[in-house]
């Protein structure tokens, strides 16, 4: 099993519903976020191109955060989802410094917090909060090892990219372009 997510940059309007849904679902402390929207503008006026991406932890296959964690608090859970065990985390910040996507943050309570792909929902057969709430249905989630999953089907159909593949992290967050 290998969980992955695909975000359609052509459909995303950057409404930030995914951000709010995540903050609500996961009780993210005020002022913090586990997912966020990036808008990239290309070209010079009037020839402008825009790409909007809903970003979050890439749940990398070769996760530097898991590698550098001194206690094993950062670990691979079901389907390659990268999680943090709060009671093992010493809050040293090594994983935060190791993430090229800056997807982690120190929770005010001390441990390091991040996107969980809503594993608690996925286990119940639900979709992650951000995917479920998206008004343009631009996000796809599922198991890459299952050729019939939403994410496998869309990645076969469409062109896609990952963020900074040259960092060698093997990200599992895909952007349809």
């Amino acid at each position, binding site marked *: 099993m290998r969980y992955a997510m695909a975000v359609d940059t052509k459909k995303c309007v*950057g409404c*930030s519903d995914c*951000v709010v849904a995540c903050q609500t679902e996961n009780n993210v402390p005020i*002022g*913090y*976020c586990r997912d*966020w*929207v*990036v*808008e*990239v*503008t*290309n*070209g*010079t006026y009037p020839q402008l191109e825009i790409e909007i991406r809903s970003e979050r932890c890439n749940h990398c296959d070769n996760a*530097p955060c898991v*590698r*550098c*964690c*001194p*206690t*094993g*608090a950062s670990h691979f859970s079901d389907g390659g989802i990268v999680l943090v065990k709060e*009671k*093992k*985390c*010493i*809050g*040293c*910040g*090594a994983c*935060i*410094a*190791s*993430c*090229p996507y*800056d997807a*982690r*943050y*120190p929770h005010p*309570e*001390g*441990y*390091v917090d991040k996107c969980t792909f809503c594993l608690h929902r996925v286990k119940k057969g639900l979709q992650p909060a951000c995917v479920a709430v998206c008004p343009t249905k631009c996000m796809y989630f599922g198991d890459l090892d299952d050729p019939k999953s939403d994410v496998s089907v869309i990645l076969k159909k469409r062109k896609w990219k990952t*963020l*900074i593949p*040259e*960092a*060698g*992290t093997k990200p599992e967050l895909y952007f349809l372009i």
Partner: protein
Amino acid sequence: MKEEIIISGRMNPKIDPVLNIWHWEIPLYLFLGGLAAGILFFAALYIILKKEDEFPTAVKKAPLITPFLLIIGLIALLLDLNHKPYFWQLYTTIKIQSPMSWGAWTLMVVTPLSFIWAALNIKEIFPTWDWNISFLKQFEIWCRKNILPIAWITITFSVILGIYTGILFSAFNARPLWNTSILGPLFLTSGLSTGAAAIMLMSKNHIERKAFARIDLLLIAIELFLITHMFMGFMASTQVQIEAARLFLGGPYTASFWVFVVGLGLVVPAFLEVLELSRRKIPVIVPATLVLFGGIMMRFILAYAGQASRWLY
């Protein structure tokens, strides 16, 4: 023109707009750890070479301060943790791929060793010192009998500690400025150099001071070579590392790095040491203090500049 704007509310404290997860605690610890590693290295080296009579300060006096250096460093490390009550989790596992994990274990070895070195030489300061407890007396006798193996263990672990302070940074691919394997040898050399400077400061023996001025001069030359090599590597590397080098070549850290680290921390003390070796009278406190100052500045500047360097996507 390519523009990238983050339009969401991602303004996570300590992450945005520039990563600032590590503050003064980490570079201070890296400095103190490197300094302690340097002092213990020379103490063990001259025991192994059987030259303890020629270098009394290096072997007997300087190790006395290493437990204090390491304890202050450990306190700094603890202060740096965001989830302090769980620090003991470090010692529930060894993760070979995590420099922080084996670094923590290295400290577990080096800190007791530093206590042994200090205890063996405590009579240098308190000539009438008596352990009073027979177990401690026996332990002292046992240590003195086995000083050679202890010296070998110390020299090995002091090198590991010294090099680890640099590897801690270089293991992070996400921060291009740190992601160079030169940092390990550079921090080790700098640690040895600050150790030599501390010995020079404490020594009252003219011959020993001159010997350490010579050693320090060699270490400074190696450091200058490694720094040059680091920039050559960056400039010949990928865009992100070119950008990282630019932090020091016209970017915000240019003045502080070249003035405080390279100028005042390396070139000026090297010049003064050359003068001293050519029999001019230079108060030893000046080059030695400058080397220590350069060592601490290098770690502070690299810690902050490294967090400012990033992948551009």
